[in-house]
């Protein structure tokens, strides 16, 4: 099976493993003078963070990633606008766009999705997330109870798939209703976006098993991966497993650990080394505030490649990677890590 590698697009800001402060490259205020008054600054306010996000997307495309994951982050720019913004500047990338089922009408979302499919050569993909709890939802104009989040995701997908693939299509659920719907003409016959879901509850896994192409796992410990994959595959052996994990890869382990420790010192983060007998090291919650991932592999290129190979052997066929800053680290991972993984996955598929 072909293995896919997806790079994260940091929609709310970036940082550096050597400098943990939040940055929005390109973002400028009129009063924000970063240079000495004796040094001229040609930029004015012509750029903002979107220009940088476009560069990260291009970097992922140029360095051979299969896709980008456009983060749903309420502190940043909106993911459906970002995906449109990078759509025509990218050629090969799957455009995995994260959002919540609270965004509005499922029909309207599906209809916008069809436009993205038509105009990207069917590269659009959905990561539908359950959100950050009731208080945040109320801020977002969403009164849904926590217990209903997955049922709404389920209905959202039923409606979206329905109107994309059938006409007429009618539906009456607790959250969505459609009468004699369904897309016609050029909006008919387009593929449903590839669907990524997540969640570790039985309900979440059951909904994934029914609707999703990929189930994203974000386990707290590497050792937990195998049992989780077994639980998911028991529900649907066809459901592909996607692992969300950060990488801090350097030429040597010493360099990688030095960067991780400096980052910890700068952030006073609660992260710690996961006790394990093998390399690379696994840090918990190292750059979570920037990337939303729980785990970071910290080590040499060679050790990280071996660890990813172990994940592949455990049943993972999709990786959503991030590292900060996302532009430089896309090149680093694209140049030092992906080529050997490609060789591994190619030889595996040749042997099969």
């Amino acid at each position, binding site marked *: 099976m072909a293995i896919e590698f997806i790079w994260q697009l940091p929609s*709310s800001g970036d940082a550096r493993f050597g400098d943990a402060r939040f940055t*929005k490259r390109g*973002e400028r*205020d009129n009063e924000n003078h970063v240079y000495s008054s004796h040094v001229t600054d040609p930029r004015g306010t012509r750029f*903002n*963070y*979107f220009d940088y996000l*476009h560069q990260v997307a291009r970097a992922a495309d140029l360095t051979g990633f299969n896709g980008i994951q456009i983060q749903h982050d*309420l*502190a*940043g*720019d*909106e993911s*459906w*606008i*970002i*995906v*449109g*913004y990078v*759509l*025509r*500047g990218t050629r090969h990338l799957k455009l995995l766009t994260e959002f919540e089922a*609270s*965004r*509005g*009408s*499922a*029909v*309207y979302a599906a*209809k*916008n999705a*069809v*436009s*993205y499919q*038509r*105009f990207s*050569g069917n590269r659009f993909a959905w990561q539908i997330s359950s959100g950050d709890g009731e*208080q945040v939802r*109320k*801020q*977002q*104009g*969403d*009164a849904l109870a926590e217990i209903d989040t997955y049922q709404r995701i389920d209905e959202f997908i039923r*409606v979206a798939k329905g109107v994309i693939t059938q*006409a007429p299509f009618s539906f009456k659920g607790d959250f*969505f*209703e*459609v*009468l*004699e*719907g369904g*897309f*016609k*003409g*050029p*909006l*008919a*016959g387009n593929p449903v976006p590839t669907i990524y879901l997540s969640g570790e509850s039985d309900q979440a896994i059951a909904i994934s098993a029914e609707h999703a192409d990929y189930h994203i796992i974000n386990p707290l410990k590497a050792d937990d991966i195998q049992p989780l994959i077994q639980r998911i595959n028991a529900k649907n052996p066809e459901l592909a497993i996607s692992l969300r994990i950060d990488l801090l890869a350097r030429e040597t382990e010493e360099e990688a650990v030095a960067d991780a420790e400096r980052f910890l010192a700068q952030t006073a983060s609660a992260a710690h080394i996961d006790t394990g007998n093998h390399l690379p090291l696994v840090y918990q919650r190292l750059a979570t505030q920037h990337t939303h991932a729980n785990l970071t592999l910290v080590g040499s290129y060679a050790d990280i490649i071996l660890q990813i190979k172990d994940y592949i052997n455990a049943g993972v066929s999709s990786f959503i990677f991030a590292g900060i800053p996302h532009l430089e680290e896309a090149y680093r991972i694209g140049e030092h890590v992906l080529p050997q993984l490609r060789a591994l996955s190619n030889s595996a598929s040749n042997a099969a």
Partner: protein
Amino acid sequence: MSVDFFWRLPTHGEPSSHRNPAPFRGDWPPGADNSQRIGLSGGGEDGFSYIDYVAEIAKAAEISGFHGGLIPSFPMTDEPWAISSILARETKTFRFMIAFQPGFLNPVTAARMTASLQRATNGRALFNIITGGGGPSQLWWGDVAGHDDRYTRTTEFLDILRGVWKGEAFSYNGKFYQVENAALPYPLTKEEFPEIYFSGSSDAALVSASKHADYYLTWLEPFAQLREKFERVKHKTDALGRKIKCAVRVDIVARPTEEEAWREVKRGFENLSPEVIQRFNSRAGSGDSVGASRQGGFRPSSVNSYKDLIVEPNIWSGFNLLRGGQGNGIVGSYEQVAERLDDLVKLGADAFILASTPHLEEAYRVGEEVLPLVKGLR
């Protein structure tokens, strides 16, 4: 005063001229909305799609001096939010007028989308808020709210959009929406709130417009009727405390001479299939849109020649035979079209959304030949 001219992006595809429905640009075959035909940029194997042609029009419009363009949304069209974000990077001054119905989006999500689109376009987003339409077709979109309820919802939606815009905690308890301590994050809060073009002719619409609209947008109606309408809108909204401007969406056929312009219309009319005429003659109103029924009211009962549809000098009411949308439009020489636009300015129009087929070539024609003749004086 000053007058703004916008163009339109034909989201429902377009014929290569007013004369004939074929060849057709895009993958919408006219009159058959449930089949798909490969036309120019029609989803072939060359990697191009209809967005490549739409991008050409947007760039032609900005080069030709239009502020931007209306991006309509109908069940068979691509969506304006998608089109705007996709074309953000490859246009310079083109302003994206997004037609949408507020009920389709969560207002806090929509606020973040809007601010992000402003950032992506350097402040070039604006809205054409649609609330009417309705009837059974509203359930096609998955929307269960009734006609007057939908205007209440539009008002609440825009209340929340403005409320969260400045980034201070905002709470709201409406009939349709409840929000607790919502706010846009910095730096999204740096952006200007988008201009709002508001459509809707009912009393419920005007109450909502008077609270939130910058422009009241209407289709072209007979001039006397339009003058009365603009006066009513301005009177009503002035009384409610908000000065709003008026805008007209109008199709035009402009040629060097009036004779050439009418020849386009005549050829287009003659190329219509008998079924299209028959359907036109027998069409009953559907939905509960007041604007659509105001347009339909002065249609002749039966039509045999394009001349039957001339309702006053240079005004032809058969444009919806040639393509979807409104019936009334302006036909004439460059000078005449400019004069009729000036007539509309005099009776209250502050902005126009013009359209003509094909939108690419006609953007250049209208920008070069007609707009320089418009005086824009009231």
